[in-house]
């Protein structure tokens, strides 16, 4: 009887791991608010980026405020390959990154090792 419970529990955990890591999950997205003709979005860096998807208005100057709380050295840089930006993110320090919003499109950003990703949508 105990063995049956353990078996079911074990399989449940396996199922959970599969669903948790391989399943489709909604990513946190955020649309920037425009104030005084500047749009700002705060991005929290902790085990990835939140939000992972940022939507910006075309033509309005934009600033992304990155703050890293994660101790992992994996996330200590943020790279926007399309904009030529490669910035160090000292832990616990706000880094404001200006984004050129003149061209609409979808742009990727990533950590220095290209392991964690975020997406920037300008429209």
């Amino acid at each position, binding site marked *: 009887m105990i063995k049956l419970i353990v078996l079911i529990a074990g399989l449940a955990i396996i199922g959970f791991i599969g669903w948790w*890591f391989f399943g489709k999950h909604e990513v946190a997205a955020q649309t920037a608010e425009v104030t005084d003709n500047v749009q700002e979005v705060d991005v929290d860096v902790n085990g990835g980026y939140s939000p992972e998807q940022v939507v910006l208005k075309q033509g309005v100057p934009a600033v992304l405020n990155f703050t890293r709380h994660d*101790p992992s*050295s994996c996330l200590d840089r943020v790279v926007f390959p399309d904009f030529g930006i*490669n910035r*160090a993110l000292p832990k616990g320090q706000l880094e404001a990154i200006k984004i050129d919003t003149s061209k609409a499109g979808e742009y990727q950003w990533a950590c*220095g090792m290209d392991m964690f990703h975020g997406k920037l949508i300008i429209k």
Partner: protein
Amino acid sequence: MSITARFWVSLVLSLPMLAEMIFHPFGWMLPGGEWTMLALTTVIMAVSAGPFLQSAWSSFKKHHSNMDTLVAIGTATAYFYSIYAMITHQAVFFESAAFVTTFVLLGQVFEERMRNNASSAVEKLVNLQAKEAEVLRDGQLVKVPLDEVVVGDLIRVKPGEKIAVDGIITDGQSSVDESMVTGESMPVEKKSGDRVIGSTINSNGTFTFRAEKIGRDTMLSQIVELVKKAQTSHAPIQKLTDKVSDIFVPVVLIIAILTFLVWYVFLGASVANALIFAVSVVVIACPCALGLATPTALMVGTGRSAKMGILIKNGEVLEAVNDVTTVVFDKTGTITMGKPEVTDVVGNHQQVLTVAASLESASEHPLAAAILVKATSDQLTVPAASDFKAIEGKGVQATVDGKQAFVGNDKLLIDYEIDASLKQQVQQLQDEAKTVVFVGFDHQVIGVIAIQDAPKPTSKEAIAALKSRGLKTVMLTGDNQRVARAIADQVGIDDVIADVLPGDKADHVKALQADGKVAFVGDGINDAPALTVADVGIAMGSGTDIAIESGGIVLVKNDLRDVDRALALSKKTFNRIKLNLFWAFVYNVLGIPVAAGVFFAIGLTLSPELAGLAMAFSSLSVVTSSVLLNKAKISTNVSSTTA
């Protein structure tokens, strides 16, 4: 707490347990036994491994997993199982948790050290800009900050000042040192109507120019932008490891749970035994050796090359070197000395040189410097000249030994006659792409001096070595085809691309990349974009800081033969990395089924301690293999210098 501090904490606290492991067979016991281990490991888990757990947890919440996840689960399982084992009086393996933490942190310390060298090339480029300019406003010359200069402004530049922005000279003339942008060591003569480049340095005259391009449109800004883009566009090779680790971690966890279930539920093992198998799987799957494979080989390989005066900046360069098929060279300063030198003296050698040196002794002109160097090396006594007078656009005249004397360019021939044989010699020298200076004494031409930026003596051997590797060699230069071809033939270069504008070098490199990977060797700022665009950028040590920062490999000794040595060493190191990764994978892939008890029937099992030991041993073998790289033979085709 920094990674380095975490590493030291875990290393120091692991040492007593290492001693226990080594001396246990000889009857030595760690004072306090398991309790001491528990205490030491608890500190390591809290201080050194804590951030792994924290990062693994925040990744987990976002449905991600990474190296930290494995490390966290591996060490935490080993730690908590050991506490359980202590209670049930079974063998503990606290040391596995401690060693795993230490090894992983060691890898990260190496990694951090390498990544901290991330270049600040872009900031240095921006710092080259002039800070202010003297602008004509309302008929008055006023100093204004650079960002207040607008297109159409008339700007005055005095000797020694930096030119603020790009523009066209409207009045005055001077020679301008453009080496920081073009890499061309010879100052360029500029007169009314000529273009000037912002951030270059005016040397001797004063002139006024009209601003044409400002801010982001200037040539320097364009180069800055190119370098920036090129730097971040590197597709990191970690993509594959990332893919693997994204699947690897959950898969290992699933295998571990399955192992437990199979043993406990279906084969009737006790909870403790089934857990031992599961824990063994997690411990042996810890990607320690995988993590160490690359950084240790890099450390040793780059250390060894550094001793030889070859600085290799990162692992991507090492990888790229393997597939290079074409080596492209910049001419000035790379293949040639970058310093003009006297090559021929026609006429009475001593007299011609003495007169020329005496006239040029007060001049700052680079050709004058070449003549003075020659006169000094020939140990000539140069008489002082007096009554200097410039012959407008032609040269200079003065009184030497009481007689009129002059030096200058071929425009002097309007005033002075030369005979046919000298004329022919002059033409021949010019065909050899040499600059010719006429020397006159007592109202007649007594001879000519030919000056050339000669190839380095080692260039020929260096190119031959690369060609014997089967590589194609190409020279890129802003010089005209004739000069370029003459130099290329002297050193044995296959192809020449001449008349290249400074900004177009990167495009030519890109075009060559269509046929395979390209290594670019250069030294000037204008080489920086090409150095970054090329699969392997090799900067000469004597070059500008920007070039050095943009290159993936820097040759400190400025010896072109080091290109071949750099290629040989990079290949060797990269092959060792591949070997390491192969063994590390084998350990993990073969180790998992063994740890899971698949071979239990034939008596082959791994207890968690053995799994931990195997894991440590795999790391050790990988590190040993890396250290042996120091002894490996490097095959080059160039004569060896002291390593």
